[in-house]
């Protein structure tokens, strides 16, 4: 324990004045005598920081008025110095933590990463929407797929809205979940999931297609789905649906496949991988439209019933299901869903 020399304090224990001022810069501190009485919790660090700033201002004023500056590194064995040390350490940790947090925030929450993919004009979006229905043929030079995210995102949200409308008008009941959650989950799941799958397949086939390009390609392909579903959720004829499915769905699929092929032509990709890639893409796209149309005629409740009791047919006949052609398809889908349900149940 050092004694206090040359300070002007009147209290026997030394007071706070000079040594607090010196304590901010002192390096000689007797650690053995430290105790835990002056704790500093991190929750209070902000206030402590503020208080330290104020103390520094007070200290500056005091220093300006005093002529003698005193000695550095004077330790008086008081709780004031120990508290000062703990506060200093905690303050430094606080500052370091704040710096790291703001660095992490600037790195991950920086939406500027996505900014170049939203750099479009309305004319471009409109043109791409129209072109997504026109299958281009016989392209002999490699074409680059434009990577843009605004159009696909808006199309996915539109699909969600249309799906919601369809579910509501067909009286779909979803027990374990909400209507909105299911719609969003289905559409975004398809868009992100199938894009990742196609990206993975392209990676396997050594074709250089970026994730943004597959997202963009698939997103614009959903335009056909939106149109078909919008029409058939309001006009309930199954034959009309099949015609639209083939025509509109087929057109948009052909367009996507052709674009894919065109993007792959220049690379050293053989015939088989190209076939696999484009075949998968086409099949998934068409099947998704089929699924969206049939899935929300009480089929969700049907699947749950299938799991509980194997006697009920998964798809309930709704009054508007009139054409005979539909019943054959219905039975086929019934059988598929039943087997799926049995498989799921057995797992």
């Amino acid at each position, binding site marked *: 324990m050092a004694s206090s020399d040359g300070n002007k304090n009147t209290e026997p224990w030394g007071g706070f004045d000079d040594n607090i001022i010196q304590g901010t810069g002192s390096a000689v501190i007797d650690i053995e005598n430290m105790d835990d009485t002056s704790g500093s919790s991190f929750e209070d660090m902000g206030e402590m920081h503020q208080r330290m700033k104020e103390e520094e201002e007070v200290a500056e004023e005091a220093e300006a008025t005093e002529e003698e500056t005193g000695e550095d590194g004077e330790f008086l064995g008081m709780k004031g110095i120990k508290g000062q040390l703990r506060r200093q350490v905690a303050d430094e940790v606080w500052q370091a933590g704040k710096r790291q947090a703001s660095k992490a925030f600037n790195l991950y929450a920086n939406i500027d990463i996505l*900014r170049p993919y939203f750099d479009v*004009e309305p004319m471009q979006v409109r043109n791409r929407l129209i072109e997504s229905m026109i299958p281009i043929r016989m392209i002999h030079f490699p074409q680059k797929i434009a990577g843009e995210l605004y159009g696909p995102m808006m199309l996915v*949200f539109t699909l969600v*809205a249309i799906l919601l*409308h369809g579910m*509501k008008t067909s009286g779909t009941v979803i027990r374990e979940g909400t209507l909105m959650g299911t719609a969003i989950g289905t559409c975004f799941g398809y868009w992100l999931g199938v894009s990742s799958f196609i990206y993975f397949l392209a990676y396997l086939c050594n074709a250089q297609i970026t994730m943004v390009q597959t997202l963009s390609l698939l997103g614009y392909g959903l335009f056909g789905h939106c149109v078909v579903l919008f029409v058939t959720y309001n006009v309930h004829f199954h034959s009309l649906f099949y015609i639209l499915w083939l025509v509109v769905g087929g057109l948009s699929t052909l367009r996507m496949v052709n674009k894919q092929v065109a993007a792959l032509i220049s690379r050293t990709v053989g015939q088989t991988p190209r076939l696999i890639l484009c075949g998968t893409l086409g099949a998934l796209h068409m099947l998704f439209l089929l699924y969206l149309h049939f899935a929300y005629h009480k089929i969700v409740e049907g699947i749950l019933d299938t799991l509980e009791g194997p006697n009920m047919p998964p798809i309930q006949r709704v009054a508007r299901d009139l054409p005979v052609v539909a019943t054959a398809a219905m039975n086929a889908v019934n059988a598929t869903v039943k087997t799926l349900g049995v498989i799921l149940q057995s797992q």
Partner: protein
Amino acid sequence: MAEVEETSKLMFAGLSDVSISGDIPVEGEINVPVGTPSQDKEYSTLDEPVKDTILRDLKAVGKKFVHVMYPKKSSALLRDWDLWGPLLLCVTLALMLQGGSVDSKDDGGPQFAEVFVIIWFGSVIITLNSKLLGGTISFFQSLCVLGYCIMPLTVAMVVCRLVLLGGSWVFSFIVRLIVVTASFSWSTFASTAFLADCQPPNRKALVVYPVFLFYFVIGWMILTFSPSA
């Protein structure tokens, strides 16, 4: 006078190396300002009665409602943004849209949480979209505008509920359709009056479409709401 100058020169001699050419005696008074009125005002909001604070905030919210009712190009909504109004409207709408039946078999209507989540996540996504398209509006300002512009739809919901209390189904449906369509277009128009200004001029359509879709979904939820008996 000479003595004063000499003493002042001595006192300020030490300052001569602080990039002042020559010894320029500085005269005057330096006073620490004691209790400026603005400082007093800042601290006194803690001491004022709670009634004053609440009334002040309510007045600000009310003023913004008036701005939404008559959307003209003023920046009051943007400058002093607050989220009280949107919260109030969102909670009111969600409460009114709750399906009456608690039967687990029948999902009568969108539950409170669904409406709440749709409104807030929809607003967040529209804000992000407008920022990514190069908008100059800040995050919370955009949330504020979108939230306040739900007000016509809330009014429509109240009207729909009243209309559903009685009357024939077809007639009430037509009335509800007209009311919801009118309020939805009013909401879209009001919010674009504020939001579209903060965009480069050729991209206004790209910002308007998500707003249109957002209010369309909310309007559709209001229109298809039918309270279970």
